[in-house]
């Protein structure tokens, strides 16, 4: 694999290799000198068309810990705001000799399009409502760390599935890794063809919670009510929000995840978000390790890279 565009492109072996590599690289983060020489002389461009401090910093930290040269390119205040096309930006990066391009873009498929125009590795850091594969990898990593396994794990993903690139990547990756996913949302926030996806679907959070090892809450934008996806933020919270009472329905060992940014009081209550069984802060830490692993494997830190 030359690029990471979709979580669905990873085989079980490849996904496991990323997680195992991340585990090794995680130790760097615990040292006082958080630096490896692995990607010295390599150039990684962070090409961010959407504001995303969290993901950009995570990729930046990952690349820098591996000694890569990092160039941050944000659409605002750049040639893009002057009307430059994605293709022309790609050709510019190509001419500068970028070994890897990390792209965050509001249009689904932008990473795939970019991969046609540059020679370097393209890492999809979120494209529209399509996918966010490194988020799924860090989520899987976090689950494996907390629960000790992924095979057979029961994972509920709750919230705005329809517009969520995190949900799409997680469904694909978790299936590859042997977990059982149940999507929970009001029918309006599920894709029309979701019955064909490799997962279960439920409209009833209370019914799913007692049978879940992991609950992943997704951000739900209150503005969605303006497009009639649900009547009001309050009603959404009442039916699908994870509050203390619902949290108590989970098995003792179950954990709560959130890819962030979260809206406290909407999909998740403060007491749940701050509970010791919430992995939200760990996910951020793990994100750096997983992105180090992906950069390492894609940019030729090893002989073989990931797969072919």
């Amino acid at each position, binding site marked *: 694999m030359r690029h990471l565009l979709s979580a669905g492109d990873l085989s079980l072996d490849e996904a496991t290799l990323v997680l195992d590599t991340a585990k090794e690289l995680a130790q760097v983060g615990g040292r006082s000198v958080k630096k490896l020489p692995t990607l010295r002389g390599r150039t990684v461009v962070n090409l961010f068309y959407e504001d995303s401090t969290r993901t950009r910093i995570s990729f930046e930290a990952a690349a820098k810990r591996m000694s890569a040269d990092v160039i941050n390119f944000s659409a605002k205040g750049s040639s893009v705001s002057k009307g430059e096309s994605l293709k022309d930006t790609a050709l510019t990066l190509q001419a500068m000799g970028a070994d890897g391009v990390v792209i965050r*873009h509001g249009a*689904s*498929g*932008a990473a*795939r399009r970019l991969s046609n125009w540059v020679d370097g590795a393209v890492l999809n850091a979120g494209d529209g409502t399509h996918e966010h594969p490194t988020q799924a990898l860090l989520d899987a990593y976090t689950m494996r760390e907390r629960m000790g396994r992924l095979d057979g794990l029961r994972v509920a993903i709750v919230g705005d599935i329809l517009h969520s690139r995190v949900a*799409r990547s997680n469904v694909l990756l978790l299936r590859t890794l042997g977990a059982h996913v149940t999507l929970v949302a009001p029918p309006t926030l599920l894709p029309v063809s*979701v019955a064909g996806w490799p997962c279960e679907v439920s409209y009833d959070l209370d019914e799913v919670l007692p049978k879940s090892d992991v609950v992943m809450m997704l951000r739900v934008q209150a503005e969605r009510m303006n497009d009639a996806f649900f009547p009001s933020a309050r009603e959404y919270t009442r039916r699908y929000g994870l509050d203390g009472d619902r949290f108590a329905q989970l098995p003792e060992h179950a954990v709560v995840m959130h890819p962030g940014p979260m809206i406290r009081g909407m999909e998740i209550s403060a007491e749940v978000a701050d509970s010791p069984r919430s992995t939200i802060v760990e996910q951020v830490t793990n994100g750096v390790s997983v992105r180090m692993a992906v950069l390492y494997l894609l940019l030729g830190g090893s002989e073989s890279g990931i797969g072919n």
Partner: protein
Amino acid sequence: MSQTTTYLIRGARVLGGEPADILVRDGIIADLGPDLSAEGAEIVEAAGLVALPGLVDIHVHLREPGREDAETVASGSRAAAMGGFTAVCTMANTDPVADTAGVVEQVWRLGREAGYCDVQPIGAVTKGLGGERLAELGAMADSAARVRMFSDDGMCVSDALLMRRALEYVKAFDGVVAQHAQEPRLTEHAQMNEGEVSDRLGLGGWPAVAEEAIIARDCLLAEHVGSRLHICHVSTKGSVQIIRWAKSRGCDVTAEVTPHHLLLTDELAESYDPIYKVNPPLRTAEDVQALREALADGTIDCVATDHAPHPVEAKETEWANAAMGMIGLETALSVVQHAMVDTGLLDWAGVAERMSAIPARIGRLAGHGRPLVIGEPANITLYDTAAERVVDAASMVSKSANTPYRGMRLPGRVAATFLRGIPTVLDGKVQ
């Protein structure tokens, strides 16, 4: 372009039948039969070629006035001739919009000056395609362009009352309203067919019901007020069923299907290459099959290309930011051969009906779509069914190259096109 010469077309298979000679003189078919001879006539060897009445396309976008970087009336009509067409109807979504007598007359005149095929403007239904007030339909009908088809194509006349009024009003001059059936609210942020592929790709869905609901409504309206309705670019199986039902009730509705909806499916979007982005979107294989059957059984009356040229930069971009539409004039007959004739669904007489006679009737285009018999206008397309080509976007006569068939192997080649006895294409080359 040649002066009025006499042409003797030798050995052409009229509508795919037995070989015959066609003598073309003074713009008409002067004689037809075996072994003709004519003093001084220029001989056109047509052995093995199928002769069809000049093709008629009632749905093209030639972009002039306004977007001459993508296409002009001259370049688009040359592309039409290259595809075997002798008449095209241009949609009104130009800039300025063809919603006044002045603009439709301008387009009509540009077509006459170019001379490659008859260019019949379609008038807008509503002012500026705004969907709020009727355009001056009568003034366009009375103009030199003699407009009979009216359409807001690109936009749907979604207001039911306005649609009813338009249907009623055009009865005064034997007009027809051609509806772009797309319920606007159901297609907000729509990027491609809503279904398994759009859900996977995370692209906004354009559900079949948004087309079908408008078609059902408009068939009922047309029936209620006794008007003529035409449905543009039918794309779903459900639409076919509704039109079949409406026709069985006696509703005066006609419908067209594009070549691309007869061949291509939404799975092509998986590449995120917006060369496949079009409105209405490419649908599923099941829809394609239903459309082919409907064209064969007459539920869908005709083929129209919805030729929609765009400059390179409008397609070399992210899917969501790309323009919708694909060019189709120069590949239409090949695609129809591939999808309908080579599959046994239509013979050449059937193709002639659906790509010439019927669209000419719907568009009220006098002198087009006439049978190939003595005394009729010499609008003739000679087509080599045995030829084969790999579609090369760069070699298109159209000013734009956004063809979804690039790199595809397609059958057939237009060898010659005659417009009232004058070859606009000869030996596969625009004259």
